[in-house]
């Protein structure tokens, strides 16, 4: 027994834990988890057959996929984090939650964000930045809820009766601090209206900020909190101390230090400066070491307890989760190596990778943790071990089907894209050939998803029955000495306060400094200087700007990239390699992360307006075998011209060279350009009524993509080049 446990003069204090709020978070996580998986299975089927888009704009792949990812990350996993952290933190600190009202307020705010945010995504309100799609009012609400979470963590630590801060808590603290910073920095945007805003960053800059955020959302939302939970629940469930406490400390400090630099591995072969890409790659590969340190530490904790792993569903889920964590953190660094990345990027391999993380690691951890906590806080026993085991197998087999099919699909399609024959021509010049080839894999994936969903329903039923048989009892009361070793008897109160304060102050000061410096830096650094350089790019015309917002609203970026990488096959397939300069007016950037359809960076001028019209109304009419959804409502919905001037003003304030005249005449300009397109379409029999519809604006935008570059090449301002990679 250590010295601080044996209290000399510390009086015994009585306390209890707030498990009510933990229960709420558990139930919310289960509810949203089901919704997230249901959305996931639906979009999986949408890629197997376009018919599963149901012809409804709210349910097309482009809108449902952001709903799925956000629900899985922030609703399912998010609520589970709050449940697990609040449960373990109170027990590790031997103190009741700092403020229950705050925790409950945070709870309802979080559910409101999820419900409202989900609805807004279906309605097409979106930032167009992955995993950060929710519009600005939600961004503010998220920041508030998150700060409440952090204050509760720190406050509980301040009240703690256990001097030692167990390693799990370190992970929780770093989660809070880093996610707060990431979310705030990535969400700096200027509102146009209640549900529309533009980021202050443009193009390459926006891409770097976004993936700095995006990768660290994986690191500090899906990983560090769960490592903390692992260090609490695995030893608890196995009733064995962690294999090496020393290793856990090293694991923690090295992991958080390395993670923050790895973001650019999402931007390899992009127009991001070469050195930044290399930094991202090197740190990503280095991450392999601490990740595996953690995995090994988790698994070796179970040494000598493997018989228990076989019997106890809690340990079974936890052990499998840690194993999948090891797998995913081996795969990640591998995929960050530039040459591997060139094959894997934009393919389904990445999609498989994230699911081995979110299903294999997060979902399995959540199941294990919930099966541990629920019988304890509801004071009962698990309803059915058999059902939990069945769930375990559905999850494992479903996930393996998922991963295998995505590896196959990803590598197959990646190889087909780059295949050149002896004459240097594309072997598969038609993009659609590479899509049709992997459709069978999409079916396998979808059925793997169904299996996972069914298993999840087993868990819902099992937990429902478990709670139903719970016996009511009074809240358990515990007793422990006040934190005594640090306090000289007389001034006990003040000293303890002081001990806790530096942490709170440091963090608040950090946030303050960041906000301050950002407000100072952002306007100067993002403004005119960068744009004032003579660029061949013309700003978007009013109609193109509206069309771009339609593109974002419909989530076209989840299927289409806008980035031609420097390699011969991409040069031949799409055209000249992307340049940083091209994206100076792109707020947000739309490089995308997956090419379910072809890259669109050079699509301007490739087809006439009528082709696009037909393609949007019925993609299969022009490209047999296409899995792109039907977008026929674009033909009847009027584009939004009321906010057009405001949009241009916001853009101008960010440095886009719109003159006052242009802004004043925006609506007339848009109408004139739209009429031109409508006239051409009418020659093929389309009614001229189309002139004020979203369809026309979208076509205007698509025709602009790459047009300025092509013109610049013609004018000799830019060299047409294939680039030197592979």
């Amino acid at each position, binding site marked *: *027994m*250590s010295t601080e*446990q044996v209290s000399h003069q510390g009086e015994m204090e009585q306390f209890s834990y707030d498990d009510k709020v933990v229960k709420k978070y558990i139930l919310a996580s289960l509810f949203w988890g089901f919704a997230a998986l249901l959305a996931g299975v639906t979009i999986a089927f949408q890629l197997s057959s376009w018919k599963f888009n149901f012809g409804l704009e709210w349910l097309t792949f482009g809108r449902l996929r952001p709903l799925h990812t956000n629900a899985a990350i922030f609703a399912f996993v998010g609520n589970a984090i709050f449940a697990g952290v609040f449960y373990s933190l109170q*027990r*590790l600190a*031997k103190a009741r939650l700092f403020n229950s009202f705050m925790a409950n307020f945070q709870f309802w705010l979080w559910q409101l964000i999820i419900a409202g945010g989900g609805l807004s995504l279906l309605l097409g309100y979106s930032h167009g930045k992955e995993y950060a799609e929710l519009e600005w009012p939600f961004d503010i609400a998220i920041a508030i809820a998150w700060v409440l979470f952090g204050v509760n963590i720190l406050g509980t630590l301040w009240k703690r009766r*256990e001097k*030692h*801060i*167990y*390693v799990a808590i370190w992970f929780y*603290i*770093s989660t809070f*601090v880093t996610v707060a*910073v990431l979310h705030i*920095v990535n969400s700096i945007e200027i509102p146009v209206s209640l549900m529309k805003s533009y980021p202050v*960053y443009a193009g*390459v*800059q926006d891409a*770097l*900020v976004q993936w*700095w955020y995006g990768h660290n959302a994986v690191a500090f939302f899906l990983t560090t909190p769960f490592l903390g939970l692992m260090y*609490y629940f695995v*030893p*608890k469930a196995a*009733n*064995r*101390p*962690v294999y090496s*406490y*020393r290793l856990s*400390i090293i694991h923690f*400090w090295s992991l958080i*230090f390395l993670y*923050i*630099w790895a973001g650019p591995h999402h931007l390899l072969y992009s127009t*991001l*400066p070469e050195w*930044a890409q290399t930094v991202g790659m090197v740190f990503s590969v280095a991450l392999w070491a601490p990740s595996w340190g953690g995995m090994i530490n988790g698994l070796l904790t179970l040494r000598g307890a493997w018989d228990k792993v076989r019997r106890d569903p809690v340990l079974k889920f936890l052990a499998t989760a840690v194993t999948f964590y090891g797998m995913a953190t081996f795969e990640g660094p591998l995929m960050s190596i530039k040459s591997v990345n060139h094959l894997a990027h934009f393919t389904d391999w990445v999609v498989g990778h994230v699911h081995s993380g979110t299903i294999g690691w997060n979902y399995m951890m959540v199941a294990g943790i919930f099966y541990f906590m629920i019988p*304890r806080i509801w*004071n009962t026993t698990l309803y059915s071990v058999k059902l939990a085991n069945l769930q375990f197998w559905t999850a494992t087999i479903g996930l393996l089907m998922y991963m295998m099919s995505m590896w196959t699909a990803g590598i197959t399609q990646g190889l087909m894209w780059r295949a050149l024959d002896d004459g240097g021509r594309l072997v598969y010049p038609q993009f659609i050939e590479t899509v049709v080839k992997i459709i069978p894999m999409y079916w396998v994936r979808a059925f793997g998803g169904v299996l996972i969903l069914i298993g999840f329903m087993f868990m819902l039923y099992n937990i429902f029955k478990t709670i139903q048989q719970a016996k009511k*009892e*009074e809240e*358990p*009361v*515990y*007793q*422990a000495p006040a934190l005594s070793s640090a306090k000289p008897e007389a001034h006990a109160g003040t000293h303890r306060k002081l*001990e806790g304060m*530096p942490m709170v102050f*440091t963090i608040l000061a*950090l946030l303050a400094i*960041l906000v301050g410096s*950002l407000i100072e*830096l*952002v306007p100067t*650094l*993002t403004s005119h*200087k*960068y744009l004032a350089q003579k660029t061949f790019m013309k700003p978007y015309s009013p109609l193109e700007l509206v069309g771009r917002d339609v593109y974002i609203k419909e989530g076209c970026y989840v299927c289409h990239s806008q980035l031609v990488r420097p390699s011969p096959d991409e040069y031949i397939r799409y055209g000249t390699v992307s340049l940083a300069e091209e994206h100076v007016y792109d707020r947000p950037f739309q490089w995308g992360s997956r090419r379910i359809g072809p890259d669109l960076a050079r699509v301007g001028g490739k087809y006439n307006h009528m082709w696009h019209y037909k393609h949007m109304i019925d993609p299969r009419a022009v490209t047999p075998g296409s899995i792109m959804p039907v977008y026929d409502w674009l033909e009847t919905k009027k584009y939004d011209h009321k906010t057009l001037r405001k949009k241009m003003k916001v853009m101008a304030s960010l440095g886009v060279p719109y003159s006052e005249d242009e802004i004043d005449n925006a609506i007339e300009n848009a109408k004139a350009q739209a009429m031109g397109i409508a006239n051409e379409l009418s020659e093929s029999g389309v009614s001229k009524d189309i002139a004020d519809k979203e369809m026309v604006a979208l076509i205007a935008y698509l025709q602009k993509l790459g047009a300025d570059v092509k013109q610049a090449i013609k004018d000799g301002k830019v060299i047409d080049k294939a680039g030197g990679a592979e």
Partner: protein
Amino acid sequence: MSIIYILAPIALFLGLFGVAAFLWAVNKGQFDDLETPANRMLIEDEPINKKNNKGKEL
């Protein structure tokens, strides 16, 4: 790439914050003992208002 001027200081701030937290922890004696904390967290508190404590194996 001027955004680097924003992101690099932030990353450094976070790094420095980590170092500060680490030093704080070392000074507070958080890592003086690397054995007992791992064992201590396993000890279940016994509720004082109940006779049978939920029958957890130990």
